[in-house]
């Protein structure tokens, strides 16, 4: 049996031997790891004076790194995937350590354990408990720290401790393996801070399976045509008295700015519109709305178009678009029946030009069952559009409507603990 095999059997955890090679005659070793917490642990084994180059980036192999540098490197790899971090007490010993989270790359961190450390006070956690940090933290373990032991010893119960932690980490649902349970008053005072909402964001809403299937079919067909370069078939989907409105709050892009003058003169000869082009005066109202004294809305170019023919013409003049529904996370959809018809509300993004940033948009449709013998009936569409409202705005990404996993959240440090 080899040494590696023997060690693997004897150790309590599964592990793989490191990729390790000597890079010079002085005994410098290059250890290549995946950028996970191995890097940090390895740094700990060596003293800072004789620090070996431990890095996930081969180019930096020559640089001497301290423990903190390695940790910072590791933290910077955390972006994009939910990272687990378990910082062992041995790592820092008695040294006061400052962690810089200035780049805020830990947005996705959901589970964090400082179990069995030497954290004496809440100030020690200040670096990660501020506003805007660790927005997705769901589980925290602080067990076996002087802080916790003292808090609980002093009061004889853990309610003050729980309250203090939740105040600083309002998004967590599991603390030391147990679901958070707070009194009504505590919940109220935490919510006053505005850091958490009384309800989490839920995914796409449909009031029935039938609604879901009708609406999905409608949207797939509608946007396939909308993105196709020839929007004329869309006119057939609109009711003869349908209404289409379009609004925007889009900053003029540099590309538009140059040709704006020429665009104005071209406007009425049926050529292309931009998202922030005002509609022709005969059909539109351009107004500066005063919402409240001293506060005026952005100039919203607004047009109200009635009838399938007019709507069809307008759609054709709008810029080309590409909606990539394969990225489901970039869209959110709600659909439900009302006395006015089936309401379909879609928020998401589209690209006008593959080389330019996308736009964000909001689209509301109201659909009615297609009447037999109507123009829409000839298309085979079971639904007819009676209302269509499009709003285009500068791109803000999809963070706003991401679903938070609060339900059935499992502890990864203490198996068996579940928050509901």
């Amino acid at each position: 049996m080899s040494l590696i095999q023997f060690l693997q059997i004897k150790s309590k955890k599964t592990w793989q031997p490191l990729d390790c090679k000597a890079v010079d005659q002085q005994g410098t070793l290059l250890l290549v790891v995946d950028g996970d917490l191995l890097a940090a642990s390895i740094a700990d084994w060596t003293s800072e004076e004789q620090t070996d180059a431990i890095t996930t980036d081969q180019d930096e192999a020559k640089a001497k790194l301290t423990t903190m540098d390695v940790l910072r490197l590791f933290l910077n790899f955390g972006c994009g995937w939910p990272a687990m971090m378990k910082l062992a007490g041995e790592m820092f010993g008695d040294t006061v350590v400052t962690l810089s989270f200035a780049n805020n790359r830990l947005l996705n961190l959901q589970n964090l354990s400082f179990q069995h450390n030497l954290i004496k006070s809440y100030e020690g956690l200040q670096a990660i408990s501020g506003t805007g940090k660790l927005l997705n933290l769901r589980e925290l373990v602080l067990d076996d720290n002087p802080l916790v032991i003292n808090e609980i010893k002093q009061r004889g119960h853990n309610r003050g401790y729980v309250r203090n932690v939740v105040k600083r980490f309002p998004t967590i649902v599991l603390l030391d393996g147990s679901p958070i349970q707070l009194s009504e008053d505590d919940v109220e005072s935490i919510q006053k801070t505005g850091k958490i909402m009384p309800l989490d964001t839920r995914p796409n809403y449909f009031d029935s399976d039938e609604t879901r299937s009708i609406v999905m079919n409608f949207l797939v067909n509608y946007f396939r045509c909308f993105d196709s370069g020839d929007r004329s078939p869309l006119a057939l989907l609109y009711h003869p008295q349908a209404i289409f409105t379009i609004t925007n709050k889009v900053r003029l892009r540099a590309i538009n700015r140059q040709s704006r003058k020429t665009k104005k003169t071209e406007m009425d000869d049926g050529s292309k519109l931009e998202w922030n082009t005002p509609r022709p005066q005969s059909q539109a109202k351009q107004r500066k709305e005063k919402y409240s004294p001293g506060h005026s809305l952005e100039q919203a170019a607004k047009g109200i178009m009635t009838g399938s023919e007019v709507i069809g013409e307008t759609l054709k003049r709008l810029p080309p678009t590409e909606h990539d529904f394969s990225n489901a996370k970039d869209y959110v959809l709600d659909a439900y029946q009302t006395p006015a018809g089936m309401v379909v509300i879609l928020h998401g993004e589209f690209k006008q030009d593959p080389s330019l940033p996308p736009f964000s948009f909001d689209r509301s449709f109201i659909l009615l069952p297609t009447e037999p013998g109507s123009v829409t009936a000839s298309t085979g569409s079971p639904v007819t559009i009676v209302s269509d409202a499009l709003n285009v705005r500068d791109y803000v990404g999809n963070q706003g409507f991401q679903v938070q996993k609060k339900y059935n959240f499992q502890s990864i440090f203490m198996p068996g603990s579940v928050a509901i």
Partner: protein
Amino acid sequence: MNPTSIAEKSTEQFVQFYYPNYDKQRSSLGSLYRDGSAILWNGNAFSGVQQYSEFLGRLPASQHDIDVYDCQPLSAMANAQGATGILINVTGTVKYGDHPAKKNFSQAFILAPDEVQAGNYYVQSENFRFV
């Protein structure tokens, strides 16, 4: 006045009532809803105005800033007097509590004309999302 102008006037009145009251005096919003009103908040459906009012009580103090709003008359929803329903779409930003972060929101309303009081509307359905 044609249905579009009526809708625009009523929408302006509605938006100018709804958001300031949402921010300063949330309890006065109750009068806008009826028993059958359908309310969605970030994908959470409420089974009635009572449940929604409880939720509004727990929601931190808010501060809305409206960017754009838009409306369309809904002829499929007209009362005996010929007043139509209204589809309203609002987008803007909102802050909660002491938290400085501004969240983008989009809210769609369907207003139904009051059967008795001409010129009055109630919220038949409403859908709020952070976007």
